[in-house]
């Protein structure tokens, strides 16, 4: 079959070619239209002529396999693909605006802005990882934002899909990607760890907040390998006003061993959304890089550099959920709270990477203007936080795994649901109110949460013997 021409005005599988908008080393981008599709479209055509980089073909094949499988606001929609035996192409949604690369001459950007952008990118990564895909080329030019604010990840040519053949697996002797952003384990051939994307996001955050790339711009393998043992200068050394919570987050992303980074992108987004709750470790205050003894140990301890056995992405993500326990701190909820703690302990004991967010809702009156101080003049908000920490204390969780939150709301169930949605919570543990009087008056919070939450919900009740009979009947 004759190869169809790609030129303005030409037609291919119902798509009419418009203008050429980009000519890159790997592919050419054209605007296209289709009678049945109203979204603006782009057609990506790989450069496959004689003598072109074979990587252009393989990365096009990866994108051709992966993009049609992806869904949601954080990726461009895919509207058609063409195979190599005729004319290879991918038609995708055209995201308006520029990539984050356009910000590069405004660096450094303010910390607060970096926090917000970082959170949006981490949220997009969480959604991608949930769909079994690791991006592997997170950098400013592969990140865009929709007018509605959602971060969109583009360019899946180097990506890994946990349930599809990895065509880049044996294709190239050297790891393929963008040197300054590449995670150390990639240099050992590891392609199935989603935390590689968290490392790249850490590089981006470091660069955007300091104006310096943490590992320089070296493109040589020798230069890139240094990151297997040499940590970057802490941002505070470059900028004395660098917030400790931000340094904590950025340096955790840049940990050499993936296991020391955030367990999941959702947990990283959670930290960026709650900077005041970030557990500050020695990382947050550091001004120096690791001592040479540590660097030498890393460099010459082969064990640290051995690739780990293949992991299952879904299993790895499931081992690091964000669990919310919704607690009532009112008097008389002691037995129920004890049961909640037991349930939480059982959950957490099987999930070493899980994090726990303890939630309490400070109910506001619908009409009255609420006073944050109670009759004795105590700050109710702080009292509740203290009560939550007290409840969690017997769980003996590492502080980096525990946060407490007091929400102020008229409708407790709606507040819990909103917190769950915004923070991508995976599991809610909530007690069922036993007092039928209150329940009749107020409706059941747990029932509404269980019915409307987008995640798993465990409703906890005290053991039967602990339930006080309602009317003293003994039937």
């Amino acid at each position, binding site marked *: 079959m004759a190869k169809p021409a790609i030129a303005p005005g030409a037609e291919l599988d119902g798509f009419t070619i418009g203008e050429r908008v980009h000519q890159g080393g790997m592919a050419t981008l054209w605007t296209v239209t289709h009678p049945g599709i109203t979204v603006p479209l782009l057609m990506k055509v790989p450069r496959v002529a004689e003598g072109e980089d074979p990587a252009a*073909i*393989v990365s096009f*094949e990866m994108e051709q*396999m992966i993009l049609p499988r992806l869904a949601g606001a954080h990726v461009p929609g895919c509207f058609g693909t063409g*195979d190599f035996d005729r004319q290879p192409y991918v038609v995708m949604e055209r995201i308006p605006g520029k990539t984050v690369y356009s910000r590069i001459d405004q660096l450094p950007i303010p910390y607060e802005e970096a926090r917000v952008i970082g959170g949006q990118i981490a949220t997009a990564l969480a959604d991608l990882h949930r769909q079994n895909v690791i991006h592997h080329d997170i950098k400013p030019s592969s990140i865009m934002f929709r007018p509605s604010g959602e971060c969109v990840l583009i360019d899946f040519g180097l990506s890994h899909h*946990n349930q599809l*053949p990895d065509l880049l697996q044996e294709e190239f002797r050297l790891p393929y990607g963008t040197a300054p952003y590449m995670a150390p384990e990639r240099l050992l051939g590891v392609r199935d760890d989603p935390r590689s994307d968290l490392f790249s996001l850490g590089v981006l955050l470091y660069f955007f907040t300091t104006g310096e790339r943490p590992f320089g711009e070296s493109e040589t393998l020798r230069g890139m390998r240094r990151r297997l043992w040499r940590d970057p200068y802490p941002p505070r050394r470059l900028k004395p006003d660098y917030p400790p919570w931000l340094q904590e987050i950025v340096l955790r992303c840049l940990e050499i061993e993936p296991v020391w980074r955030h367990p999941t992108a959702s947990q990283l987004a959670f930290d960026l959304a709650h900077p005041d709750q970030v557990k500050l470790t020695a990382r947050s205050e550091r001004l120096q890089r690791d001592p040479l003894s540590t660097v030498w140990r890393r460099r010459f301890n082969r064990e640290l550099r051995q690739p780990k056995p293949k992991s299952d992405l879904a299993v790895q993500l499931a081992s690091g959920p964000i669990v919310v326990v919704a607690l009532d701190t009112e008097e008389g909820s002691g037995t129920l709270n004890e049961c909640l703690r037991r349930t939480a302990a059982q959950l957490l004991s099987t999930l070493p990477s899980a994090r726990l967010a303890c939630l309490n809702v400070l109910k506001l009156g619908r009409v009255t203007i609420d006073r944050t101080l109670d009759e004795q003049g105590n700050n109710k908000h702080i009292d509740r936080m203290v009560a939550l920490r007290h409840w969690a204390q017997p769980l003996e969780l590492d502080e980096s795994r525990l946060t407490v939150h007091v929400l102020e709301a008229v409708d407790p169930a709606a507040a819990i649901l909103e917190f769950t949605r915004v923070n991508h919570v995976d599991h809610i543990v909530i007690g069922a109110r036993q007092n039928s009087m209150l329940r009749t008056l107020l409706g059941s919070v747990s029932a509404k949460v269980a019915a409307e939450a987008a995640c798993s919900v465990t409703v906890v009740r005290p053991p039967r013997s602990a339930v006080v009979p309602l009317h003293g009947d003994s039937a």
Partner: protein
Amino acid sequence: MRLAIFADIHANRQAFSACLDFARVHRAERIICLGDIVGYGADPEWAVDTVMDLVADGAIAVMGNHDHAISTPSESMNAAAQAAIEWTRGRLSVAQRRFLAELPLTRLDGDRLYVHSEASHPARWHYVSDTPDAARSIAATDAHVTFCGHIHRPALYSMSSAAKMTSFIPTADVPVQLLGGRRWLAVLGSVGQPRDGDPAASFAMLDTTSREITYCRVPYDVEAAADRIRANGLPHWLADRLLMGK
């Protein structure tokens, strides 16, 4: 067109029935049988009759080493396999034995090649257990996709236009597009005697229009199949391994 492709049925009536039911429910339009219809299992007459009927209805079948051993005793089989072949031979009618003996070693169907073991030397019954084995098979044919079985463990290999290989253990129920720019070797798991640790029957569906292959797993009454093996005096190990999928 939607194809249902089965390898290594091994006279396991319970497993093959469950797979055929699945194929019917998922509207398979053509059945492909990649050989080893008999051997190991206790229902060879039923298995051969079933495949003969399918072939009469347009199915394609090729010969496996156990099918071959019915007419031509092989010295390379282990004792349990050999015992099952001797027992099977006594159970089959002349017509059934002739059907097995006359099966072709390979069949080309458009740009698809069907073979029991691998494409470079189909009559030598080599196993495809790694990428060099797969590369040898792919290099021996012009077919876009070769389908084989024999090793009882599912795998999917591809060779790029630059002759670079990839290997992959397929995930059940997740379709994989067999891209046109490279050539593929789809190694199927076994219907009647899976050996990858999962006792469920293993096979694949192919959509020839979208070029998507989906590896499938179907649970079946393993106990019943194992009981039939024991009740017919076949080596007990053949029953035990069905329960373990090893």
